[in-house]
């Protein structure tokens, strides 16, 4: 195999990428003409084929290279572009190049594998949609973009995928675009992601400048320049901007802005923070998480695929991928971990009270992504990434179950929001057995029931948070520049651990609450009757959203289980959700396949992550904390909603109405952003638009035209049209002209050559001249003659005063004095000719 497909020219990658693209292309262009079966065939074949090639690639990857060696299978499609970079400001080539290592190999297996299952599910879920082909076109395009993101061998190619998935997300959230809030939610997602992309672009120009490359290998080998350059170029001046000091300008005392000590950060920290901004956008973390709950406006399979299993984990993937940069800055690592912990807490607290089943799962996703951030933030990259894997299984399964439930509810409840409200469900477990059991398994997995996948991945993260901390590998270098070296505080790890425990307990509570309210108890959606009581109306398509609203009091069919195309993916995903933990059963054994598999990727970060010496003794005591969180949360939800039928919850909400309201309103963060950020930009834009119309245009165009018009008006006064007025003016003019001719004008012109000056008098009617050429103050002759010019010679620096008197035909005379001065020879008088060819 390796002879046909060498590691440096591994062309099957092309196949992995092109199959989904082909699917998107065919379905997008010919979808309408093909009909649904062909569209289905095309879409499934594309993703399935891609998945098979992925499997083959990973198998090959496992058998190439030596042990503990970070090797890749790479394929260069073509030379893309280049830019200026490196500390020497040379040209840096950027190629369309893709590569697979163990990290991207694992990720692409998940994307194509889970993606394929969700494609299968969607064929049934979307079966009655008018835009079936368009849906699968977008879905295949998403898989393609996600694969580009994962397989890209340099940051710009990753960015292609990064923006590509953002675009697909935009298109799919706004899939039912006739409903304006859907389109608005899509726009919100796109713009929030764009704010993150801004961070990524800034990180890219910093990276290409300091490391001189944008591909993984080149950046990794040049990464030390972010902390260690010959001069202090690795320091980025934040304040004053760009370094230097403020001088006073025009009396403005700008020097007060000069700080006592310039505020600088290292390039590594700057790159890390900017990458982090990008990751918070894509992975829905504070402060940019607000788009994800709104993104639930898209079809449910989309929520499962894009907004739970794959795209939103791209931020975690990027942190893992760029771990060699993040490891240089413990401060950024701490930011990641703290952001993760805060997001986990915040989102979990919102999820406690939500009633929309998709919203609960959406906030749960945000919260779980927070856990992943904690993992990668404390330097446990493997643990963080392992949670990506397990989360992909159980969250995809949960969303698809929710889709299955909504599908059933849509049989009679046509309002989208009401069909997703868990207060209208209940007791569905009786009617939808497969959905119920798969949902239960996934719920147990996500809340960390011992033995299931979530237990292993989440507890590993919390354990690592307690025992790990990053240190700065370049601390000495920084000290040489009198830079404060940021040190990871000892309390931070335990604080994050306990925050994680609280979030885990909340997770257990809201997930069990969601399960109980949906599947246990009595059905609250509509009255279920015997078949003889049904009013059959075969003309109405049960899944047509435009159909009329039914009276839900009338007896109807019980909710139905979904077709096989929807339930089989659920079963497969639930199986993986249950057993995927065995890939990395951290507290049980030292033999950890995933850890071993990913080890080479994170090799370079090893030195900067310190583990407590007593870590091994803490393993089980820390794990007990996780188990306790699971037990408390579960028991509380079971007691409140199963045993007491929700009564304690209602009482609690009634006793704390303000808090309950605040949680229901998602802490009013959206309103805060509206008030603080959006209205600010809006006001700025309004000001600019006003300024442009009235000040810029007003000054340049309107004021100028007013001035010109005023001048015209003044001059117009003289154009009276009264003929004798003109005649009088003409007479005055003629008189002036006449006087000019009667008066003599002694004018001279002068030419010079090497100190020989020639003065020539101007001609006139009947002019006669007399000169004082020697400058003694008296005229050379008393009589006027015809001599029109005189010659004289001057030495350098000398001067002479020449006099000329003119008599004209009327006998009037007038004289003038001309001072002739020869300048000192200087450089400016000489015209220098340099090598004219």
């Amino acid at each position, binding site marked *: 195999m390796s002879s*046909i497909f*060498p590691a440096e020219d591994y*062309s099957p990658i092309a196949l992995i990428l092109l199959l989904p693209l082909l699917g998107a292309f*065919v379905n997008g*262009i*010919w979808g309408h003409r*093909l*009909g*649904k079966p*062909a569209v289905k*065939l*095309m879409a499934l074949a594309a993703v399935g084929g891609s998945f098979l090639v992925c499997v083959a690639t990973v198998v090959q990857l496992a058998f190439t290279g030596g042990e503990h060696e970070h090797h890749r299978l790479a*394929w260069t499609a*073509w*030379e*893309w*572009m*280049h*830019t*200026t*970079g490196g500390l020497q*400001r040379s*040209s840096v080539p950027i190629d369309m190049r893709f590569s697979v290592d163990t990290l991207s190999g694992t990720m692409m297996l998940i994307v194509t594998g889970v993606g394929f299952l969700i494609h299968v599910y969607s064929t049934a879920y979307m079966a009655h949609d008018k835009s079936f082909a368009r849906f699968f076109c977008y879905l295949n395009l998403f898989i393609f973009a996600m694969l580009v993101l994962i397989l890209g061998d340099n940051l710009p190619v990753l960015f*292609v995928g990064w*923006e590509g998935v953002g*675009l697909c997300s935009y298109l799919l959230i*706004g899939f039912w*675009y*006739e409903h*304006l809030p859907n*389109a*608005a939610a899509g*726009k919100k997602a796109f*713009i929030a992601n*764009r*704010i993150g*992309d*801004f961070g990524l*672009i*800034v990180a*890219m*120009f910093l990276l290409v*400048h300091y490391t001189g490359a944008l591909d993984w290998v080149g950046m990794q080998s040049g990464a030390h320049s972010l902390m260690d350059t010959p001069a202090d170029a690795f320091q*980025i001046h934040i304040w004053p*901007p*760009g*370094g230097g000091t403020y001088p006073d300008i025009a009396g403005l005392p700008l020097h007060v802005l000069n700080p006592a000590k310039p505020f600088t950060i290292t390039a590594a920290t700057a790159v890390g923070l900017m990458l982090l901004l990008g990751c918070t956008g894509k992975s829905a973390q504070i402060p940019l998480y607000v788009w994800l709950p709104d993104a639930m406006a898209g079809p449910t399979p989309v929520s499962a695929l894009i907004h739970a299993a794959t795209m939103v984990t791209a931020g975690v993937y990027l942190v893992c991928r760029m771990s060699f940069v993040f490891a240089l800055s413990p401060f950024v690592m701490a930011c990641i971990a703290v952001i993760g912990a805060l997001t986990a807490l915040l989102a979990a607290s919102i999820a406690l009270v939500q009633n929309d089943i998709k919203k609960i799962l959406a906030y749960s996703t945000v919260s779980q992504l927070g856990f992943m951030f904690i993992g990668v933030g404390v330097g446990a990259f493997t643990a963080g990434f392992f949670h990506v894997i397990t989360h992909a299984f159980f969250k995809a399964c949960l969303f698809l179950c929710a889709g299955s439930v909504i599908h059933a509810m849509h049989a009679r409840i046509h309002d989208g929001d009401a069909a997703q409200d868990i207060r209208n469900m209940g007791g569905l477990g009786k009617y939808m057995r497969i959905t119920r059991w798969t949902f239960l398994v996934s719920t147990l997995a996500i809340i960390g029931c011992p033995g299931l996948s979530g237990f292993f991945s989440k507890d590993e993260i919390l354990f690592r948070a307690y025992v790990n901390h990053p240190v700065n590998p370049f601390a000495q270098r920084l000290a040489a520049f009198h830079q404060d070296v940021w040190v990871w505080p000892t309390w931070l790890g335990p604080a994050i651990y306990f925050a994680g425990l609280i979030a885990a307990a909340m997770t257990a509570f809201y997930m069990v609450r969601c399960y109980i309210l949906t599947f246990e108890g009595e059905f609250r959606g509509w009255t279920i009757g015997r078949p003889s009581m049904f009013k059959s109306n075969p003309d109405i398509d049960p899944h047509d959203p435009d159909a009329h609203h039914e009276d839900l009091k009338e007896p109807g069919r019980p909710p139905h289980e979904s077709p096989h195309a929807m339930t089989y993916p659920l079963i497969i995903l639930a199986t993986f959700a249950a057993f995927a933990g065995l890939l990395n059963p951290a507290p049980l054994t030292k033999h950890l396949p995933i850890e071993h598999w990913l080890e080479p990727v994170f090799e370079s970060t090893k030195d900067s992550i310190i583990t407590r010496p007593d870590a091994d003794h803490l393993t089980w005591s820390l794990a007990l904390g996780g188990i306790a969180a699971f037990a408390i949360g579960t028991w509380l939800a079971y007691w409140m909603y199963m045993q007491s039928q929700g009564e304690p919850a209602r009482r609690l909400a009634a006793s704390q109405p303000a808090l309950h309201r605040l949680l229901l309103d998602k802490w009013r963060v959206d309103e805060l952003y509206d008030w603080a950020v959006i209205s600010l930009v809006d006001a700025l834009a309004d000001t*600019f*638009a006003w300024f*442009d119309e009235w000040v*810029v245009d007003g000054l*340049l*165009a309107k004021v100028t035209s007013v001035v010109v018009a005023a001048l015209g008006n003044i001059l117009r006064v003289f154009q009276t049209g009264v003929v004798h007025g003109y005649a009088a003016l003409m007479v005055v003019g003629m008189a002036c002209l006449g006087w000019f001719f009667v008066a003599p004008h002694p004018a001279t012109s002068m030419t010079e050559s090497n100190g020989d000056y020639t003065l020539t008098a101007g001609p006139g009617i009947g002019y006669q001249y007399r000169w004082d050429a020697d400058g003694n103050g008296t005229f050379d002759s008393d009589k006027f003659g015809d001599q029109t010019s005189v010659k004289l010679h001057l030495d350098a620096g000398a001067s002479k005063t020449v006099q000329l008197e003119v008599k004209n035909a009327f006998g009037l005379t007038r004289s003038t004095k001309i001072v002739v001065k020869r300048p000192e020879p200087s450089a400016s008088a*000489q*015209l*220098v*000719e*340099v090598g*004219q*060819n």
Partner: protein
Amino acid sequence: MATQTSQSIEQSQRPPWVAPLAVLIVAGAVLVGLLFAFHQVDAAVGLVQSLVIAIGEASPIIVPAAVAWAVPKHHGVRVRAVLAIFAGLAMLFLTQTLPGTIGADGQTHESGHLLSWLLGLPLAGAIGVLFLPRQAPRTVQLFTMLVMFASLGVALPLLGVHMGATYHFNQDVLWMPRFGIHYHVAIDGISLWLVMLTVFIVPIAAYVSFGSIKTRMKDWCFALLLLEGAMIGAFVALDLFVFYIFWELMLVPMYVMIGVWGGTDRIRSAIKFFLYTMTGSMLMLGAILYLAYTYAKASGGQLSFDYFDLQRLVLPQHVQTWLFAAFALSFLIKVPMWPLHTWLPDAHTEAPTGGSIILAAVMLKLGTYGYLRFCLGLFPEASAWAAAMLAGVAVLGGIIYGALCAWKQDDVKRLIAYSSVAHLGYVMLGIFACTQGSIEGAVLQMVNHGISTGALFLLFGVIYDRRHTRQQEEFGGLAKVMPVYAALFVIVTLASVGLPTTNGFIGEFMIITSTFASTKIGKFNGIDATGAAIGVILGAVYMLGVVQAMFFGPIKKKENEKLEDINSRELIAVAPLVIMIFVIGLFPNVFLTQIKDAAQRIDDDMTSHLEAHHAPDYYEGAIKLAPRSSLAPRALPSAPPPADARL
């Protein structure tokens, strides 16, 4: 509703296996090509390499076939054939110009008359139009299109030459010996793509305008051809007198186009456009005359307007600053840069679609090109002195201010005009930063802006022809009635927003990254680059806003319910632009290889000047002459100064 459903059922009668089968057939064709390729290539080339070669060789046939098939089904053979030809040409262009395929021997014969043909054809065509009957508009249109295609054909040999750092297709004829005026035209890596852009865009604008312009067709065609000739002339002229003539000449037809075929407030906009541009031009004319006069004094009596002669002048600071200011003002008005930009929204809103396309796509580029060629070339020290400040203006006044203003416009054409201000802010930032990468990015971004903004104006013209309104709130929900149109509009929007794999991304990315590497804009490189990156966010805000307002949501207005989707003429016109959006986005190296060395030359010129004379007080002393640039074309043997030329 019912009939629609039944139709869609009828249409899906085709067996489901047809499409996969067709895909298989195409794949089979590729495999056959692969087999052939195996016989041709030697063993040293690997399997994948031969596959790539096979795909490359087959692509000019496969891609057009796919395109012809992909056309929405209500279009006939005519549209399919034309679009297939476009796609085929684009693929040929790609396969023939991909780096490595340009002849390495480099000894191509360059005709010294090619550029004269190129700019002479449209000018002669304009005169030719005058002799055609006014009563036969179809004949006039046909003639115009023929002349434009002929220019396009004449321009093609330009692509066959590797430009490198020097000038090509040089033609230098002594025109007015007494004043030292030459007819001097030549092309380098920078003007090459702008000339190509002109000959590419103008036929498109003409073709689409034939659908919407109903009156005075002969005058319209005359104006179009005159404009095309003048713009090409301004791009290739290297004698400042000739440049000035073309610079002014293109003003006239555009003035007429806005004034005669424009909207309701056309006269005011036309006058505003004319006065703004003219103010700058007058200052530039004064500066040109001063330069020529100074050259004569420095060189011993011979006037010259030649770019390379005037480049030799070493000017002291106070002289250079004023001359630079005169030139720069003229160019910055044309770009337009804040605060001189307010003529642009007015001109764009009132101009007819064809005029808007040409104005946005090509004429604004004269400003950026002029700055790059003449300000950086003639006054390097003064340009470097002003660069930091102007870069700040480009970022704040262009990229950010322009974008925020665009966001607040209700009038879609005004919005696109303000987005031009923002996009050209990127171009100017790249020029001010003046590193090799940023200049390359700037030149590419000029072409990009021409294509994507041209396409935006074209597409907006489509809906304007149907609704005769420019207000956003008049639309809404159009995606339902005009799906193909909506898809195209979204694609072009994304190109304008700068999504990767479209052209906008490449230009912005190169400019932003290389600006950070710049040493010529003081210590503000980081702030400028970051500010430019913020523009990426704002671009999405205003462009997606307009897309949402126009295409999504329910249909609010009754007039919008029965709108006809994009017709064949409009589809044919916009197709080449959409193709180029992806060609540039995916294969920018095709373009960059030609620009690279010229950009390096400009960077080196600037750097060497700045090393010799440090800004800000770089040089105070007499005006003197430096040697002629070694990369300049060989000068004509200079005629002796005529006996009666006295200074």
